[in-house]
């Protein structure tokens, strides 16, 4: 993909809807996003409000889409790390390499009562545990080497068991023996997404996330958070270029072609209780995206439409079309996996013997 400043712009959209439990409406929104060449769609999930299991919905969407990345929220506070990683790996198999996982925690006593296993805990402690879940998931995805399946009729062996590994993970709250029940998924590691807005969540994102979501009401603010995340990632021993930082905006494109609200011209987002809200037209939103990306303060945007169907349609046919026209956004998918869309390499397997170590 080419762009005026030599690095890709990444766009994602939320397909959350109120009170929708049928497959059809989600399929329609995901296909619409795919027609705009978006990197991925997200679907949020929580035990605290009505809504279907998000990973299930995006698995249902997978066979009837071709290229778009599928990123459900899966919470890790009351769930089993072993089941969560197996489900995410399976989403990667059924979508042929398009799975992501937005990691989240459950902080309320109400959610704790649904399970009756532990009490509510402070967010910082839960995000620390979430980091451990992100870590053990990656270890379990690596617990099968890519070429573990050998089907060697002469010796009667289906797998080479030297290429399957116990992970023996000891966390502060849980332990997992391994290996996974699911062979290593197509992407090696499905893409891990973390909302890096708050305290410990930001540290967990810097350490484990492939995509960090941040909330910012100005390009400068976004740039500051991005710089902090990249510096922090480097401290954890990561190459900061393996981290994509996307600004999360709630978008309301209901006001026609251009921003109508006084003091809101040029499409600058406004801080609200639900995070920065952009209210205006699709053209101005394209201007904002182009401008911030041109400032090199963001790698892209994660957009949550206020009115899913209306705003996503305007986003794709207005904002995205304009960005494509200006050569700032892909017009087709050159790759087939979500990692390829994001320009992230398929990770090496930590257990594989590379031979001739320096």
């Amino acid at each position: 993909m080419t762009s005026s400043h030599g690095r890709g712009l990444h766009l994602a959209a939320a397909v959350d809807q109120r009170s929708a439990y049928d497959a059809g409406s989600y399929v329609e929104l995901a296909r619409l996003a795919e027609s705009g060449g978006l990197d991925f769609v997200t679907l949020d999930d929580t035990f605290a409000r009505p809504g279907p299991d998000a990973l299930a919905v995006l698995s249902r969407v997978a066979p009837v889409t071709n290229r778009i990345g599928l990123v459900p929220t899966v919470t890790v506070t009351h769930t089993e790390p072993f089941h969560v990683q197996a489900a995410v790996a399976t989403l990667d198999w059924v979508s042929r390499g398009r799975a992501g996982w937005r990691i989240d925690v459950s902080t309320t006593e109400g959610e704790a009562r649904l399970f009756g296993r532990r009490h509510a805990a402070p967010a910082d402690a839960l995000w620390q545990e979430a980091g451990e879940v992100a870590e053990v998931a990656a270890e379990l995805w690596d617990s099968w080497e890519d070429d573990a399946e050998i089907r060697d009729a002469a010796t009667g062996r289906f797998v080479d068991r030297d290429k399957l590994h116990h992970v023996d993970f000891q966390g502060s709250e849980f332990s997992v023996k391994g290996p996974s029940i699911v062979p290593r998924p197509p992407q090696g590691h499905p893409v891990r997404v973390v909302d890096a807005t708050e305290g410990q969540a930001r540290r967990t994102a810097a350490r484990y996330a492939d995509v960090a979501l941040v909330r910012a009401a100005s390009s400068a603010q976004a740039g500051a958070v991005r710089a902090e995340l990249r510096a922090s990632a480097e401290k954890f021993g990561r190459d900061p270029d393996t981290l994509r930082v996307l600004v999360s905006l709630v978008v309301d494109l209901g006001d026609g072609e251009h921003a109508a609200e006084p003091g809101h011209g040029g499409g600058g987002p406004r801080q609200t209780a639900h995070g920065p809200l952009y209210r205006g037209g699709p053209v101005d939103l394209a201007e904002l995206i182009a401008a911030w990306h041109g400032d090199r303060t963001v790698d892209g945007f994660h957009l949550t439409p206020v009115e899913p169907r209306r705003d996503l349609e305007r986003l794709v046919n207005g904002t995205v079309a304009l960005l494509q026209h200006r050569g700032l956004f892909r017009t087709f998918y050159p790759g087939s996996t979500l990692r390829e869309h994001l320009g992230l390499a398929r990770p090496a397997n930590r257990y594989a013997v590379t031979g001739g170590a320096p």
Partner: protein
Amino acid sequence: MTVRPRTSRKEIHLAAHFPGVNSTTVWADPRSRSQIAFSSFEHLARTAERGLFDFFFLAEGLRLREHKGRIHDLDVVGRPESLTLLNALAAVTERIGLAATVNATFNEPYELARRLATLDHLSGGRAAWNVVTSSDAFTGENFRRGGYLDRADRYTRAAEFVAVARELWDSWTPDGLSRPFAHRDQHFDIAGEFTVPRSPQGHPVVIQAGDSGEGREFAARAADVIFTRHGTLEDGRAFYADVKARLAKYGRSADDLKIMPGVTVVLGDTAAEAQERAAEIRRQQVSPQNAILAVEQIWGTDLSSYDPDGPFPDFDPEPDPSLTQGRTRRGDSVATAEKWRALSRQKGLSIRQTVIEASGRQSFIGTPEAVAAELETFVRQDAADGFVLVPHLTPGGLDEFVDRVVPLLQERGAFRTEYRGATLRSHLGLTEPGGKG
């Protein structure tokens, strides 16, 4: 409960088991394809739907099996997570039921009930849950709670788990109002609101697969389908009578619980050809290495120096339960060893030949006409309400049955010629659960 007239002719119910981590699946056959690619699952599920099967079935294992402290490598290893896979299959099928095996020990009711209700919504009423239990610390090492559960508590937890799941499924009114729930008993103390409205089936179908007295009682009280291993006509009739007789005390009728043994089918143009193919499949299933392994599992010791084409050990087994982990054990090893050695002596069979002969599942082997007739006989003589077919090849293992046997069953009037309803409950002839309006 509504009372339905018993039709003069029982209709056969059919389900398709995906070939996977078991000793039936032949992975070395050149026609065998991926055990993990979605295309394999899609092929088998669509074939079963073309054959108008009631449901497609996935097994589960939560820890890779180990033998002598190492991962068991002779059978298929690895599989997808069932519910995620079935949600994807819902996109490429329209009517067939989608059944996931999910462990009641290593899950929590709120989350699992929600995942099952979601599958039921996304598939338009086709979800089923095969409830299994386990208590081994070996599997527990992959989970937060470890292997804490006493063996005796497995079924009490499973029964309470199913009861809680149904409370949650009933917690929304049919017209979409959420009502709070609270449950407090021996195993679970939970309260709050369920996040998913009542699903198309009300309650996803519940399947049970245990054979013990406790398992039968649990099925009679709580299950819609029982998946058994009683494959012979005589065994089947005894089991069928026993389980159906247990229903009345729970206020249920004989039609409320379908009995479906797991069976294999081998077809040929002649009876002799079918027998020959069946023998070849058994040889593929029991490789020399697998034969030694089977004997080690009984004897409880390393027998790797034994020749699979030679005689059995002349010493008696010393059972070592830690030798093989993550695999269901059946019966008493000393008795099994004696049975196998007797068979070997009587017929002059080697270790491998004996294992081949002794360890097969009930098979229906013959021409399509003969197999269709025999399947119908089993159902008409109350040895079964239907069958879970366990093919040996991925993903083409059902093709021939659907092409050649299903039309004959239909001609005999023993099997549906179209799906009459949209939900799995309707395929199985189960009533809608009443719910608490």
